[in-house]
């Protein structure tokens, strides 16, 4: 480095202090860049749900609902919920990876809004949820899925989906902050979410299940999320149903956002 270069480096110009929104937008920009640079992660996030859709519809669909077409109508809104929940796990893993690498040390020693890194992660999540949902929805439409509520129903469904993703996301951010390695985050997250996702009404109507399990499925918040999605896209939504679906994400956000901040600052 010559003296001219040194002179460039050390000029003392300080821009005005940015606000929280500006910080969050910067983190959002980073999230977009990450999708651009690592497109294969979208592939990971989309392939599993597409496989699920194909397998369940064509292998089990006929047996479960009389015909594959019939089953698709039931299954597709639910698989979107499953996709969003599983996708959120990756965000927790990403956070854990970042934390292990010193990147967060820089954020934490900068004069920025302390929650902005998480706001950025959430922006990235929302984008991934949206892209993945649109792809799966597209595959569904190709294979004969027909939302009775039409465009507006689908749009409302997607909004509900983003709200679900936002609320559920905090669980995995907290895991990402607590666990030491991304792999532990994944193991813990799937151990917890698998039973919730499978013992729900996403894949099967619980009326043939044994009583104790049916009880579990009915109180399982994932079921109310899937039901609300189904109803929205079929044009049978009720305010009560939507409210019930939003209750868990709301509680998770209210409880876990402060926990996230506390864990982050404590490190």
């Amino acid at each position: 480095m010559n003296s001219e270069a040194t002179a460039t480096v050390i000029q003392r110009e300080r821009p005005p202090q940015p606000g929280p929104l500006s910080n969050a937008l910067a983190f959002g920009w980073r999230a977009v860049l990450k999708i651009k640079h690592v497109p294969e992660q979208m592939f990971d996030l989309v392939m599993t749900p597409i496989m699920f859709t194909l397998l369940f519809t064509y292998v089990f669909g006929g047996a479960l609902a009389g015909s594959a077409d019939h089953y698709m109508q039931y299954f597709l809104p639910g698989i979107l919920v499953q996709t969003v929940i599983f996708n959120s796990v990756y965000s927790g893993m990403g956070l854990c990876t970042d934390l292990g690498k010193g990147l967060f040390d820089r954020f934490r020693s900068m004069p920025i809004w302390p929650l902005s890194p998480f706001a950025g992660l959430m922006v990235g999540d929302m984008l991934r949820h949206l892209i993945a949902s649109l792809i799966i929805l597209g595959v569904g439409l190709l294979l004969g899925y027909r939302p009775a509520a039409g465009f507006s129903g689908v749009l409302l469904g997607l909004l509900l989906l983003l709200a679900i993703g936002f609320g559920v996301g905090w669980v995995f951010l907290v895991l990402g902050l607590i666990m030491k390695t991304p792999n532990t985050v994944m193991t813990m997250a799937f151990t917890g979410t698998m039973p919730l996702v499978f013992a729900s009404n996403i894949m099967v109507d619980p009326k043939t299940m044994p009583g104790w399990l049916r009880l579990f499925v009915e109180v399982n918040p994932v079921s109310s999320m899937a039901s609300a999605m189904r109803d929205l896209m079929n044009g049978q939504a009720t305010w009560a149903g939507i409210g019930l679906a939003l209750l868990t994400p709301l509680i998770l956000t209210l409880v876990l956002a402060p926990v996230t901040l506390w864990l982050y600052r404590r490190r």
Partner: protein
Amino acid sequence: MMEPLSPAIAARGLVKVFDEIRAVDGIDLDVPRGAIFGLLGPNGAGKTTLLRMLATLLRPDGGSARVMGHDLESASQAVRRSIAMTGQFASLDEDLTGRENLIFLAKLLGFRGRSARHRADELLKAFELSEAADRQVKDYSGGMRRKLDIAASLLVVPDILFLDEPTTGLDPAARKSVWRLIRALANQGTTILLTTQYLEEADQLAERIAVIDHGRKIAEGTSRELKAAIGSSFLHVTLSDPARVEEAAQLLEQLLASEVQRSPEGMALSVRVNPPQRANLALTKLAEAGIAMDGFSMAAPSLDEVFFALTGHATNAGSAPGENA
């Protein structure tokens, strides 16, 4: 009348405990504004922990500190406005390109679109990274990461720059250019607090050096003061016969009135010689006693020897420049 300026850093009795281990055990530190101040010590001495506390990354378990006059605990956001830190591990996003990393951090600091890009490009050019600017950081070499990481700390030139082992992993040319940059920053009024395992680096750069060991400050002064305190030269003797190491060590200890440090393999002895001429006598006496030597040499004290002289125990790493343990 103007208030006298507060020192860049004033720390009193800082303590950090990890699982019952006192990583930092009551350190006082006074760093004047515009100084280059070195924290010297082996791995695990507590240098990094001390730096992380001052950079608001760790909360002290005891003591207090003011950074540019702001209290570390109650005004941490004001402290963050005055500092930048380059840690031991590159704090960069591996998936983003070098340029994107700098633009992103510039935006976080309040630069708007065009000026963020301008500042990023300026720094990339200054750090000779322009050609690699559009490659993802995961494809960078260790030296390039280091440079980008330091560049990121200078997007807004801070009042205090914390550098944790800034030249570890750099080739000699890159190391020299980092040293030059550090001096230029200090000339412009930035205070530099750096950690190093290398006596040479502390020697070259730092106006004052604090020697840290087991979480305590065991000495502080200019490089000259520290060297004077431990004697200017060391005699190294490699023996031929392992059976006579003890005998030779005792002889040297008596003659030179200084403790002998044994190499892990046991065949090499190091001892402080003050004045250096006495080495002559010591070698003669060894020869007279019939203790055969494979070789001997005189050298300025190494970090290991500084440590041995100051603490009475060897450093646990025994690392030399270039081999980062």
